[in-house]
C-alpha cells in the first residue's frame, strides 16, 4: 500500500469517529491497524481528532499493552504465558523460538518479517502450551514443534507473498472464514 492510500484510509478513520465520545482508543487501534504502529505525527492527529491533548493520547497509548510506539514486523508471534502455558513449559518454548529467530521478546527480526511478543493468555488453555502466529493459534507445542510451526508459517507466507498460487490457496484455506 502506498503512502497516499494509507493517508486516505487514515483520513477516513478520523472522519468516522469525529465528535464521538470515547473515540480515543478505537482511533488509536484503527491508526495502528493502518500504519502498523503509532508514529508521533499520527498520534498528534489522532489526539486532535478526538479533541484531546497529545499527552492524553500518549498516556493512553502507553497504558495499554496493545499499542506500539515502534515499528512492528509484518507478522507477530505471540508466545502465550498464561498460567496453563506457564506450568506446561511456555518458558522453554519462548527460549527456543527466540533462539531460532535470534531475537528477544519485543524485538523484530532484521528483515521485519516477525515480531516476537510474550502475552498473557490467548484463551486456548486446553491446548497449552500455545503460540499464536498472527491470528492463528498452535497448540500442544514442544520447543521443536513451535520452531517447526514458525518455519512452516514463514515458508507458506513467503510463497504467498511471492505471488505463488498454491501457497496463497493453502493460507486462504487454513484461514477459512477468518476475516
Amino acid at each position: 500500500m502506498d503512502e497516499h492510500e494509507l493517508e486516505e484510509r487514515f483520513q477516513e478513520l478520523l472522519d468516522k469517529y469525529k465528535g464521538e465520545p470515547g473515540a480515543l482508543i478505537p482511533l488509536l487501534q484503527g491508526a495502528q491497524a493502518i500504519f502498523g504502529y503509532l508514529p508521533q505525527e499520527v498520534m498528534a492527529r489522532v489526539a486532535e481528532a478526538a479533541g484531546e491533548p497529545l499527552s492524553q493520547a500518549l498516556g493512553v497509548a502507553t497504558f495499554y499493552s496493545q499499542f506500539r510506539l515502534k515499528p512492528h514486523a509484518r507478522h507477530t508471534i505471540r508466545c502465550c504465558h498464561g498460567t496453563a502455558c506457564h506450568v506446561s513449559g511456555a518458558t522453554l518454548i519462548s527460549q527456543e523460538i527466540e533462539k531460532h529467530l535470534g531475537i528477544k521478546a519485543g524485538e523484530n527480526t532484521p528483515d521485519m518479517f516477525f515480531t516476537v511478543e510474550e502475552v498473557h493468555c490467548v484463551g486456548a488453555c486446553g491446548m497449552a502450551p500455545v503460540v499464536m502466529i498472527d491470528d492463528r493459534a498452535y497448540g500442544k507445542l514442544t520447543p521443536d514443534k513451535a520452531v517447526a510451526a514458525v518455519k512452516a508459517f514463514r515458508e507458506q507466507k513467503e510463497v504467498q507473498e511471492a505471488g505463488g498460487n498454491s501457497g496463497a490457496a493453502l493460507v486462504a484455506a487454513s484461514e477459512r472464514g477468518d476475516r
Partner: protein
Amino acid sequence: MSGSRPALVRPAPLRQRVLQPEVEIRVCLGTGGVAAGSREVLRAFEEGLAKQGVFAVVRPREGGADGRCACVTGTGCQGLCAMDPLVEVHLRRSGNATEVTYGQVTPAMVEEIISRHILGGEVIDKWIVKTDEHATEYDPFFERQEKLALRHVGVIDPEDIDDYLEADGYQALYKVLSSLTPDEVIDEITRSGLRGRGGAGFPTGLKWRFAADAKSPDGVKYFICNGDEGDPGAFMDCSVLEGDPHAVFEGMAIGAYAIGATTGYLYVRAEYPLAIRRLKIAMKAAEERGLIGDNIMGSDFSFHLKLKEGAGAFVCGEETALMQSIEGNRGMPRLRPPFPAESGLWGRPTNINNVETLAVVPWIILNGAEAFAARGYEKSKGTKVFALAGKVKRTGLAEVPMGMTLREVIFGIGGGMKGNKAFKAVQMGGPSGGCLPESLLDLPVDYETINQTGAIVGSGGMIVIDQDNCIVDTARYFLSFTQQESCGKCPPCRIGTKRMLEILERICAGEGTLADLDFLENIASQVKLGSLCGLGTTAPNPVLTAIKYFRDEFEEHVVEKKCRAGVCPALTTYLIDVVKCTGCTACARVCPVQAIRGERKEPHVIDQELCIKCGACFEKCRFDAVRRS
C-alpha cells in the same frame, strides 16, 4: 402495563431448514479447536465428501439439491479440548439417526472416516470419543455436566443467526417484552439466585434492582457486558462469545429492559480475535433482523449495542476501570462509592455483568427461576462453567452444578492427572485466587466454602499442577503478572506487589531467608488491606495460600536451597548419567550455550559453569540420561 402494548412479532428463523441432510458433520471451531488444526479438518471433509460424488455438499437452509446430501458445519467449543479437533458425525438413514464423536481428527483421518464410516457404515472405534452405542473412557467428562450457559456452545453454528433462532433464540426476550414488566424480570432473576459469574459472586437480581432504582439526570442508563476475561488460564467467556454470541446479546437486552437502559456496550478483550469476529457477524445479523435496535420486535423497547475492543490491560476487568476504558481513558479504577449503579459510564447509572452471567439469563427466563435455583448448593445456585487446564488429563470446558466437589471436577470430569503424576495443587481464581492442596479436594465448589480457604471460585479457571511444578515458582508467576498489570494508581498495589515479587524472586534464586517469609506475609496483608481495587486486594491471595498450604516447600527453598520440582534454575542441577548416555549428541545440539561436550557414541558431560539450567537437554534426551536434582 401490558394492556397498552402493541402486538409483538415473535422472532423466527428467516431461512427454514429445507432439508435434513443424510450426513451432518460438525467440527469444533473454537480457539482451541482451531489451534489443533480443525479448520484443515473441516476443509478436508468438504473436499473429501465432494470428491466422492455420492453426496451433494449443501447448506441445509439453502437446499437446491436432490438426492443424497451432506453438510459440514463449524461450531463453537465442544468442550473436551484435550481431544481437539473434535468432529461429530450424524447420519440419518432409513429412519435411523446415529451420532458419533471422533477426537484428535487429522485431515489424513478424514478420508478413512468418509470411506469406512460415512459410506461403509462402519464406525471406527479407535478414534471414538463419544457414541450412543457403548461407553467410552471419556463418558464421565460429558455425563457429569449440565449445560445451561453453554447450552448452544458447540452445538449451533455461531455465525448463523437462524441456528440460534431455531434453538429458541430470542424467545426469552420475546417473553419479556410481551408479558413481563421490568420489575417482574428483576424478581425472576432474583428468585433464581443467580450470582455474578465474573468472580465476585454478587447477586445479579440485586445488582439490577440497584440500577433500576437509580435516577439518571437525563434518563440515560447504560448496560455493559464485561468480556474482558483477563485471568490467564480461563477461557469460559471466550468460548461463550465465540460459540453463542446471540445468547449474550439476548441476556444484555433483557437486562437493559429490566433496568431501563437503551444503550449497551460489550467490552471484549483484544486478545480474542475470533470472538470479536463472530460478535461482529452476530451483531450485524441481529440488527438486520430487528432484534437489536429501535422498537425491538415491534415493541416500544429500543436497545442499541456497541462493541468495544479492549486494548490489553488486565485491570480493565475491574468495573470502574472498564468504564474509564470505554470513555477512552487510561483504565484506572476509582474509589467506590459511588457505585456504577448510581454513577457509572459518563456519570450515568450503569449496570455491568459478566458474559457467562448474561448467557444464562435467557435460559432462566424461559425455564423459570425455580429450575435454576433447584440446581446448586446452599447460597450458590445453578451451574458454573469451569475451564480445566494444566496437568489434568481431559482439559477443556465443563459446566457443572455448583456444589460438586473439587475432586469430582478434577478426577471425575477431568479424568485425573496427565501421565499419572502426583497431584500437587489446583489454582482457582487465577491471580486473585489461590492454590489448594490435595487435602481440600473434597470441598464443594461454592462461593462461601472456597472463600474460607483463601482462594476464590473466581471466574472459573482451574489450573491443575503436579509434582513437576514448583509452588514457589507458581506464586512468583502470579505476582509477576499482577505486578506488571498493576495500574500504578495506589501505592499499596504499585509498590507492594513489586516488593513481594522481589522477595519471591530472591527465594527462587536461592537467596531467600526465613525472615523473608514473614516479611512476605506481612506485606501481603498490607497490600490486601490498603489497595484501591480488587486487583490489589486479591493480588496477595496466590502467595498467601501457597505459604499457608505449602510452607515446607518454601522453607526447602530457603533453608536447604532446594527446589524439589526442579523448576527454579538456581536450585537445580543437571547431570548426565554416564551409564545411560548413548552419545547420540541430541542434548549437545539443543543446548543454547554449548555447555555439553562429548564425542559421538561416548558419554557426554555438562559444564556446570556454562549451564544456564534451561532444561532443554532434559526435555530432549530420549534415554533418561539427563538427570535433574
